[in-house]
């Protein structure tokens, strides 16, 4: 949602695969060869004993980060789209106003607060951060699914009905494909936000790319913070540019 405003017109001329390749390659280089940049980090922190975060390998941290974000994304997409579909059906229509309100209200809950409330219930570790990410990421997806499904012209649905399609066929072959670009935009927003938010997991004992940042803040070592921030930003940019491609392919398939 945020990116569609600025990114779409500016990248129109660039070749399709350029950006994800570029960001992905940079991410890979930074993860595998962070130690090679030691002189640079030495310049940032001349007095520190160690300038490259070494408590865990960066690719391990990246893997854990991706795992947390991925699990959260799968759960959010399944639950969010399902909820959006159910409340727009005839039987679930009662729930539509409430779910709509919740979707707009939910962004009000700060992720730190959600995380802090999840820890007493679920203990330390990876589970609370996944729960916090799911709760926080659910809302853009539900909101966009509702917008997308409600945006489908009722004449088209009537036409499909008149052609003898069953409600499930209408949903699968008419409504969902037509709503897909809007839903995908919601997924994109949700995943991009969650990549950055997942770093907070490091404060509740879930090891991921937030670890170097926390270690850097605690020890006053800027080099660690830069390494964590750089990797997370590159990851976010890679994933975001992949979504850009997906969206553009979806759009071109719909218009053809």
């Amino acid at each position, binding site marked *: 949602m*945020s*990116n569609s*405003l*600025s*990114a779409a*017109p*500016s990248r129109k001329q660039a070749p399709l695969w350029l950006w994800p390749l570029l960001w992905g390659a940079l991410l890979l280089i930074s993860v595998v060869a962070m130690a090679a940049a030691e002189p640079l980090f030495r310049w*940032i*922190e001349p007095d520190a004993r160690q300038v490259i975060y070494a408590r865990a390998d960066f690719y391990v941290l990246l893997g854990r980060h991706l795992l947390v974000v991925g699990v959260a994304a799968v759960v959010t997409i399944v639950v969010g789209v399902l909820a959006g579909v159910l409340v727009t059906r005839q039987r679930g229509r*009662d*729930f539509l*106003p*409430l779910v709509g*309100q*919740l979707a707009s*209200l939910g*962004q*009000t*809950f*700060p*992720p*730190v*607060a959600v995380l*802090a*409330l999840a*820890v*007493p*219930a679920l203990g*330390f570790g990876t589970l609370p951060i996944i729960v916090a990410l799911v709760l926080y990421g659910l809302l853009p997806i539900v909101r966009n699914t509702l917008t997308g499904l409600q945006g489908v012209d*009722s004449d088209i649905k009537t036409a499909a009905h008149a052609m003898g399609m069953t409600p499930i066929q209408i949903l699968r072959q008419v409504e969902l494909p037509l709503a897909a670009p809007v839903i995908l935009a919601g997924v994109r927003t949700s995943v*991009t936000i969650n*990549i*950055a*938010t997942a*770093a*907070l997991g*490091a*404060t*509740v004992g879930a090891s991921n790319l*937030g670890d170097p*940042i*926390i270690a*850097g*803040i605690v020890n*006053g070592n*800027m080099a660690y*913070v*830069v390494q*964590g*921030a750089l990797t*997370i*930003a590159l990851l*976010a*940019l890679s994933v*975001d540019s992949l979504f850009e491609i997906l969206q553009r392919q979806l759009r071109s398939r719909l218009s053809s």
Partner: protein
Amino acid sequence: MSLMDALPTPRLRWEGRRPNGVLLSLSVVMLAAFWSLDAVSVAPNRIVAGTGYGALEAFGWPGVLLATLLLSAIGLFAWQPSTQHYRALLASLMALMALMPVGLIASSYLLIDPDLPQARLGLGAAYWVILFLLLLCLIEIRLRLKLSRLWPTLLLTAVALIWWLCAALWLDSLALVQEFRARDAQFVRAVGQHITLVSIAVSISVVVGMLLAMLMRRYSRLQKGAFALLNFLQTIPSLALFGLLLGPLAWLAAKVPFLAQLGVSGIGTAPALIALIAYSLLPMVRNTYIALEEVSPATLDAAKGMGMRSGQRFWQVRLPLALPVLLEGVRITTVQAIGLTAVAALIGAGGLGTFIFQGLGQAAMDMVLLGALPILMLALVVDAGLGALAEALRPGGIQ
């Protein structure tokens, strides 16, 4: 479709009498939670995890009967919804919320051993689940009765007052109350710091954001670059941005004594404010830009035709028409800043996040709650307040 809605067909009238599925299922889930989950937990001291007690042990037979009755009443009224029934629903909802602390008082008499002054009562899963579901019921009833946002806010304030009164007078054994008593001065200071940080950051970003948005409208070249930069800033985790500002600011404070005298240093308020403003700029600029752009050209043409000068057109036509969307931006920005300020506690900026991270460090969950709950409430109050303001500023003349 609109024609169909307008026709008073018998089917539509029948639909009005259909059971309200939302409230019905919420009532069933609440009953199930009430009977199966732990109502309260009792811990011998601050760190040890408490043992859970079911509703029967916690409230005794009279309490359980009363709560079951009220919870089933929600379901019964929802079976045949009408305006009267929705009002009755609202009343039983309020009764339930007002009775919740009374139940806690009862269980503190029943379960807490008076010989153990350290013993503390914690809210069990049933309490949280039912409280959350009751809030959902409240939203649903508000929508059905078509009440304005102000009503639930007033009702919840009344309920909060009852909770506070009970907590202050009779709930000495409640864990949250004990945590608060142990550091009440610190708590008040933290709330003050939190609000101060948020309001300074938001007011600066409102001014800067509006200026930026206006510049963008004038120089379209600037628009692309600025949006790309602001979008990029959002991909950096808040944690990292706070951390990244520590070094340069410490360096600046060491090199420029004047800045150090102003209170700028590596840790604390300065990096927190800068990061908060940086994050707040994107929603602010985006909404201001969209708000100013979306004003209909026909209206502006009419203003021009009436002989208004360009400055007049901006201040008297474009800005007032853009105000609701602009306020929406302020709302998003403020709510986001309230959450981010909690993270700023990690770099020593104070605020309510201090309790969260200290509590996490000491594995003292009640202290975490002491930080998280006020943040949540603050966010909700600001959201409701600014939302109501934007609604009020959107009279019939403005689409």
